[in-house]
């Protein structure tokens, strides 16, 4: 095989191998529909020991335990919401990568928009203020004109 083709193949394999291997084969459920639900839920749950990785991607032991618990709940007939709640009951809302909307998270959800509005409003007021302030300078007085002419002459000579 030509070297370029070989490296392309290697690149393709590396791309495919990505993050798929954290969920171990023996954890997976036989029912593909349930397994798909478990996968989609677990991409939204934070692994607590390697914070900011999802339990779907993490190889940590705790992530494995939570994945197993999640699948157990799904097999037992829980809805997605109930299964997630079972995990939130143990670890708190911190496990949710997307925080829920309630009074304590209002600032988190809407703070950036409020800041943006304040910044835009402030900028707008400032611009208007500035455009009002740019008045045309008054024309030179007779004295000024004489001084200017004298200075120019001095410079040229």
């Amino acid at each position, binding site marked *: 095989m030509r070297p370029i083709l070989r490296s392309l193949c290697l690149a393709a394999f590396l791309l495919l191998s990505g993050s798929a291997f954290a969920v171990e084969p023996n954890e997976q459920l036989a029912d593909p529909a349930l397994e798909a639900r478990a996968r989609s839920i677990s991409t939204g749950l934070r692994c*607590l*020991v390697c*914070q900011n990785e999802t339990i779907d991607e993490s190889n940590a*032991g*705790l992530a494995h*335990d*939570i994945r197993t*618990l999640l699948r157990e709940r799904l097999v037992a007939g829980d809805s997605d919401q109930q299964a997630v709640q079972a995990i*939130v*009951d*143990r*670890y*708190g*809302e*911190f496990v949710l990568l997307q925080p829920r909307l309630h009074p304590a998270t209002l600032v988190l959800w809407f703070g950036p928009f409020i800041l943006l509005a304040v910044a835009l409003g402030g900028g707008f007021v400032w611009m208007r203020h500035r455009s009002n302030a740019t008045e045309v300078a008054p024309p030179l007085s007779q004295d000024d004109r004489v001084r200017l002419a004298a200075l120019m002459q001095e410079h040229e000579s």
Partner: protein
Amino acid sequence: MKRALYLLPVLLFLGLAGYFVLALQPGYDPHVLPSVMIDKEAPAFSLAGLSGDGISREGLKGKPFVVNFFASWCVPCREEHPLLMRLSEKEHIPLYGIAYKDRPEDSRRLLTQFGNPYRAVGIDNDGRAGLDFGVYGVPETYLVDGSGHIRKKFTGPMTAQQVQQELLPMLKDLGGS
């Protein structure tokens, strides 16, 4: 009005500085998660004993008790171990151990080597009891009251200060020790 606007940066600075002062306090660890289990009923568990009797929630209920999750592979647990020994020998607190994801022979060796501070130890080989308690790293210590509700959780090795100022007074209030 316009003058007041000039104070804004000063106020912002003071707010930020105040937050920094707070965050620099010794003992403030941003990685410690608030436990959602506080004041909730302890999860049911029933574990085989490491040597002798096992432990279960129903068996321990009725009097306040302290559960310590530990493992032989856990380095911070060794750091905490002398403190636990002191708690059990000097203060005689009702301290129970749960060997989290540890091989029984390893847990046993640890306790023979360094001493056993626990009244009884349960084996949680698959980490299921830990999962139900919301354990995310050993050691973790839970104070459970007589009605079986979790009143306090310590994540990581307890310090002598935490024991003196929090664990022992709380346990006393609950009528234990």
